[in-house]
């Protein structure tokens, strides 16, 4: 349990650092599933331990990420730009997390995968299962939900 709490703190700090530093988005932890999500990205990591992180987020967050990172107007933001920002953010979150987890060892990260979630698909991410940690956050521009699956860690 203590280990899970430590992992939760490390992942939360990684999320805050990436969203605040690169995208100027400030988030707060939220209880519950956080509502509808329109986008999904997944990354795997492997090193002294291995696992995956899936991020679900609302379109509003992806739009704001692109606008803030690239200084774009809302009508200049299209799906490929949002996909690029979402994948890069998850790459940074995962990299930041594994650096905190084990600063001495090399971790290999996969290239993140991006998908849109169909409107009538109520994807809430993986159902609460063993070896998983799910964190939900609220921001001014929408919600996001990250689920880490790591059998050796959780």
């Amino acid at each position: 349990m203590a280990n899970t709490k430590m992992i939760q703190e490390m992942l939360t700090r990684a999320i805050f650092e990436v969203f605040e530093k690169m995208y100027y988005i400030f988030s707060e932890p939220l209880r519950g599933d956080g509502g509808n999500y329109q986008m999904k990205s997944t990354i795997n990591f492997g090193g002294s331990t291995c696992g995956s992180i899936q991020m679900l987020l609302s379109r509003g967050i992806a739009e704001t990420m692109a606008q803030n990172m690239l200084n774009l107007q809302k009508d200049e933001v299209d799906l490929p730009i949002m996909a690029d920002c979402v994948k890069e953010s998850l790459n940074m979150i995962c990299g930041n997390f594994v650096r905190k987890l084990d600063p001495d060892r090399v971790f290999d990260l996969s290239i993140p995968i991006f998908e849109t979630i169909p409107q009538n698909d109520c994807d809430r991410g993986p159902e609460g299962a063993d070896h998983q940690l799910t964190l939900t956050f609220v921001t001014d521009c929408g919600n996001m939900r990250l689920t880490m699956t790591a059998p050796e860690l959780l």
Partner: protein
Amino acid sequence: MSFNVLIVDDSGAMRAVIKKVITISGFKMSLCMEAGNGREALERLQGNWVDVIISDINMPEMGGMELLQALNRDELYRNIPVIVVSTEGSRERMKDAMDRGAKGFIKKPFLPEDIRSILHEVIGVGTDGEYQDDSRNADQGDF
């Protein structure tokens, strides 16, 4: 003094941010080339002189570590300073990058000042376009 830079990252958004940071930091660029992976970077180098390469590690087709190795093997490219900008920042990875010829390492997420100061250190050109003292040392990371 203006310089040519090659930014290598599979994220177009990240390439745009790095380019913007270099520009607003006052560094004069005569040419800014971009590549989405190591293989494209090697193609861009053919026929173009580059003063500094800023490269990610985790990229499809050919990653940053392989790019460093390829540059190191080539007599012509071996001396081009490479700054690695990556989410991967373990001590072992940083040491490996330095051993393969990287002159600096920046961890993502970064602040604009991180890029500016490492460019000062690595290529020795100030924002006023003047060469800096040659006695400077590149950031070797916190081994």
